[in-house]
């Protein structure tokens, strides 16, 4: 996985059938990238839903939350609706896993993304990253700690 201090590689992925999202459009704000294996994991408070509930806390840091998996856009849209998600899920679908590979968090054996988190600062530099065992939802504490330390360092603006 890409290490902290690395410039976060830019990418453009689909968020809806007719909308593309690029990382660079968030320059000036912290970005949280959540790579996860697949939509529809059968537990309450799965990772994406948990992060959705913590959105308010991320917003205190003006941070943009973005989910990425290899699921197709129609799956994402249904998943967003079902879990009432209030942040974009991007589809790393074609060519499959290209962005996950760019961030070195692709599991070739499963054809899915790793469970990985990145916090990118306002200048587009990766400041924190975390690779979770694929079966364990990492929680949001690490992200909040990382966002807090961005602010305390005051290394941006």
């Amino acid at each position: 996985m890409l290490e902290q201090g690395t410039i976060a590689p830019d990418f453009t992925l689909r968020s809806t059938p007719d909308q593309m999202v690029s990382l660079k459009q968030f320059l000036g704000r912290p970005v949280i990238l959540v790579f996860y294996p697949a939509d529809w994991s059968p537990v309450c408070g799965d990772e994406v839903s948990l992060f959705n509930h913590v959105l308010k806390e991320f917003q205190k840091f003006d941070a943009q939350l973005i989910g990425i998996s290899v699921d197709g856009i129609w799956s994402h849209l249904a998943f967003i609706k079902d879990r009432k998600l209030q942040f974009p899920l991007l589809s790393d679908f074609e060519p499959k896993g290209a962005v996950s590979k760019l961030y070195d968090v692709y599991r070739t054996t499963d054809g899915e993304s790793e469970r990985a988190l990145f916090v990118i600062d306002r200048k587009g530099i990766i400041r924190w990253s975390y690779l979770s065992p694929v079966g364990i939802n990492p929680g949001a504490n690490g992200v909040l700690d990382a966002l807090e330390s961005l602010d305390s360092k005051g290394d941006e603006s």
Partner: protein
Amino acid sequence: MSRSQMDVTKLKFPVGKQDFISGPEKAKITLVEYGDYQCPYCGQAYPIVKKIQEKLGDDLRFVFRNFPLAEMHPYAMNAAEAALSAGEHGKFWQMHDSLYEHQNALDDKYLVQYAEELGLDTSKFKNDLRNHAYSSRVEEDFLSGVRSGVNGTPTFFINGIRHDGSFEFEPFLMVLKKML
């Protein structure tokens, strides 16, 4: 980068006066659950925790903190507030039990019914619900959980360390007994 397999996730907010605690203060094991009254997995954990409490007796103190996933569970927030309101009158655990024993009946009309069964002042109870008198307390629990790495419900902490294993009775009890 950090790899998580080696490190443990710790409870950042120690058990204290603000908590509802069942069991002696000096118990060797402190089990903290972050739970949601409408979550079916928490419902599964409920009788298991009861059995574990019986089994471990005074060696265990059990603490319940609220972690309602409100977007997913529309009744979870009010149910959490109901337990806290009952707690104000010394009936937290009784309400807690009623809620988990009736997970399919958690809308306000039922909450009031449970309050009545517990002999609570229902007009005050209704007011508490209507004014969300305890919502900020619930929020505090929720945030303390988020900062401690709660990653779904239920999440358990055993003596301050997140328990990532099963909460089926046998394996759970075995892990807990290791603390004795």
